[in-house]
């Protein structure tokens, strides 16, 4: 099997005019012609998978992936119902959908497949698949746009998709069904009167297209929040499809872009843009955001298993609290958890994982702060980013040392900041790895990106095991003076 990859990416408009009424306005016709041209390009590339990230399918509970092999219905737009109906019958790659769902969960995302007769495929996906894949010859997959997802989460969503593309050796086309500026006229207009809603929207759209024409997709991703504030209706799913599309292309700025059309659809900015992964050889130095492999953000709202009443930090007792251990959260096969002890100088925080014994998260002595050993477990859920190293029966599991190391560093940061100190005041670190041969390179890479910038001294030791099924732990000393 050859190695899979993204062979092309497209930005396409969502409104039904290009399907139902292309000849009522020259601009709509231009967009339709561009759609048809894109469809031909996809055929020429011999793509074997279309992946649609649709802004018109919002989700709340994580990420939803369409897995009905043949969804059929008739779509009528909520606004433009008078233009007519679009019957659809799509060819969905359910196997890929389930594999993507699995990959999402492996990378810490909340995810599920949907396979229900009559599920309302959203207008953006219906328009895109109808025009880009008119004979259904290429299997497709559709993913929702989560209302609450940030850039980190959206990037991980793309990386898990790439995991499957590579493992299955697919020639995939990544498609974002979206408007540029999405402010439509709020009154009814004649087709001939259509134009971009405002000059400001038009100027921003042209700036976006200039970036895309130059292949600077990552730059558009980094401008996403600004673009959203400037030219987007606020209560929709932000300009986050560009985060996803950029991550699908390796967060690069040296792609080859081609704007096939840019026109108004009832005031919104509609564009068909082809992004070719071929490098132009210039401009690929600007990706400066922290990369992320695993999502370990707030997704555990309902998980209350590890939460217990905390000691009152405002009224510390003179003696250590005689706290009893609690059952570990179901996510972790390991020892019972304890509330951190409270004595003079103790520093404890809910933002760090509970100890596995009677000790504090940190203790201040003079102008020094000594941290207890810090692992990657997550506060509240006790989940281990990157996965545990073995299951409850001791059977080894595959895990991501980089994700674990990132999580350790974040836990260290939270404890240090709880003490009122700064991360750059860390002066000495002792790291314990349970598998030096396997993990040193990944750990060292994350170190260089994080603590390496701070400059503490470091000792790295190989040890036999740690109390919980984790691969890395750090012992940290902080100098609180200037």
């Amino acid at each position, binding site marked *: 099997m050859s190695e899979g990859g993204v062979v092309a990416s497209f930005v396409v408009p969502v409104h039904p005019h290009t399907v139902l009424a292309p000849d009522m306005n020259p601009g709509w016709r231009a967009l339709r012609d561009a759609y048809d041209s894109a469809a031909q390009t996809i055929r020429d590339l011999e793509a074997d998978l279309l992946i649609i990230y649709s802004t018109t*399918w*919002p*989700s*709340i*509970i*994580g990420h*939803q992936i369409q897995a009905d092999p043949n969804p059929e*219905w*008739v779509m*009528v737009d*909520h*606004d*433009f*119902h*008078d233009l*007519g*109906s679009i019957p659809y019958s799509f060819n969905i790659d359910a196997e890929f959908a389930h594999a993507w769902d699995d990959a999402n969960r492996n990378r810490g995302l*909340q995810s599920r497949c*949907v396979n*229900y*007769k*009559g*599920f*309302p495929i*959203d207008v953006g996906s219906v328009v895109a698949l109808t025009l880009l894949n008119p004979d259904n010859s290429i299997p497709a997959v559709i993913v*929702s746009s*989560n209302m*609450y997802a940030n850039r980190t989460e959206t990037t991980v969503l793309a990386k898990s998709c790439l995991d499957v593309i590579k493992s299955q050796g697919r020639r995939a086309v990544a498609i974002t069904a979206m408007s540029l500026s999405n*402010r*439509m*006229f*709020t*009154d*009814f207009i004649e087709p001939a009167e259509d134009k971009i809603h405002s000059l400001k929207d038009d100027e921003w759209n042209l700036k976006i297209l200039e970036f895309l024409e130059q292949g600077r997709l990552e730059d558009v991703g980094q401008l996403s929040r600004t673009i959203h504030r400037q030219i987007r*209706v*606020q*209560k*929709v799913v932000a300009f986050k499809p560009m985060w996803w599309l950029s991550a699908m292309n390796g967060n690069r700025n040296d792609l080859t872009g081609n704007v096939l059309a840019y026109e108004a659809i*009832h005031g919104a900015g509609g564009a068909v843009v082809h992004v070719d992964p071929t490098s132009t050889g210039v401009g690929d130095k600007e990706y400066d955001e922290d990369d992320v492999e695993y999502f370990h953000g*707030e*997704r*555990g*709202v*309902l*998980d*209350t298993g590890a939460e217990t009443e905390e000691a009152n930090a405002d009224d510390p007792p003179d003696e250590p609290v005689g706290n009893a251990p609690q059952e570990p959260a179901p996510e972790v096969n390991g020892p019972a958890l304890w509330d951190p002890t409270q004595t003079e100088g103790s520093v404890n925080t809910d933002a760090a994982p509970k100890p596995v014994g009677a000790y504090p998260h940190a203790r201040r002595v003079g102008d020094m702060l000594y941290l207890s050993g810090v692992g990657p477990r997550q506060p509240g859920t006790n989940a281990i980013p990157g996965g545990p190293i073995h299951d409850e029966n001791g059977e080894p599991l595959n895990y991501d040392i980089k994700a674990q190391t990132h999580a350790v560093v974040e836990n260290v940061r939270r404890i240090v900041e709880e003490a009122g100190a700064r991360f750059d005041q860390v002066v000495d670190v002792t790291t314990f790895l349970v598998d030096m041969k396997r993990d040193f390179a990944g750990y060292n890479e994350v170190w260089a990106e994080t603590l390496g910038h701070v400059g503490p001294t470091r000792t790295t030791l190989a040890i036999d095991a740690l109390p919980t099924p984790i691969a890395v732990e750090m012992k940290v000393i902080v100098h609180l003076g200037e």
Partner: protein
Amino acid sequence: MQVNGADDELNPGGLHPFMGKGRIVAGCIAPHPPHLVYAENPPQNEPVAEGGWEQLRWGYERLRASLADKDYDAIVLLSPHWQTYVGTHFLGLPHFEGLSVDPIFPNLFRYHYDMNVDVDLAKAIHDEAEAAGLPVKMMENPDFRVDYGTITTGHLFNPDWDKPLVVISSNRSTAYYSVEVMQEIMIELGKVTRKAIEASGKKVVVLASNSLSHRHFTTESEMPEDMSKEHITSHAMHLWDMRMIDYMRSGQAQRILDEMPEFTEQAIAESDGGGLSWLLSTLDVPDYPAILHGYGTIIGTGNAVVEWPCYAHEEEQA
């Protein structure tokens, strides 16, 4: 947008001078989380539940009992899940049937619906709104799938589906402009709704299909109806919900309208869809107490079943 004032044709007291027969029997907040239908296991819904969210379902029972002996001809409903960005739309065909699948909770709600529309009343409200300068449109495409908010509220309020509905879309003016602009439009829409109802000679119940605070959990427990996992997402949301409910129960609808921008923003309230502002305007901003039939949370959002008993108020005034 130029909105012509409609209230200059109305008496300050609210009743139209040349029309006396048509009237609003009651106005209600009737939220639409599909979880409530799922938990009830009606034959129209495909998934099966073990129960759940009883406080709210019992609230709906009390609402239905409260109106059981009241005679009315139609239900007028504004649903935030028929979201229109270009004007306000009205269902414009006499009958709709089909399968409604919630795109966000398809595991809970796949409901076979069969409903009738009071097209005459819908057109009358449409025409009054148009005369007032609001952009409006009748929806006359027979393939149109009615939104799940309408179906959910329609079922919970009237499970027999034996009354025709007028269904009004939710214009997204909050997202486009601001809560203030939304309220200006929705207050005008409420006035013309009331005017058209009075002119129609019909007795009507009006429903705003929306939650109060509206910050969801982003995870779902393995069994969605596991009530040990259900609670409000934050204390701040609870405080806002109770504040609004206090205003409702003490007859201070004007204060709700006054605080709508802060409430909508800080509680991420579903009032952004305009339903609550429209309802209060349609009821002529009631200064008499509403009846709280139930309050509960659904996947972290705050929901109240509330009735303004217009019939009782009219009897009292008489």
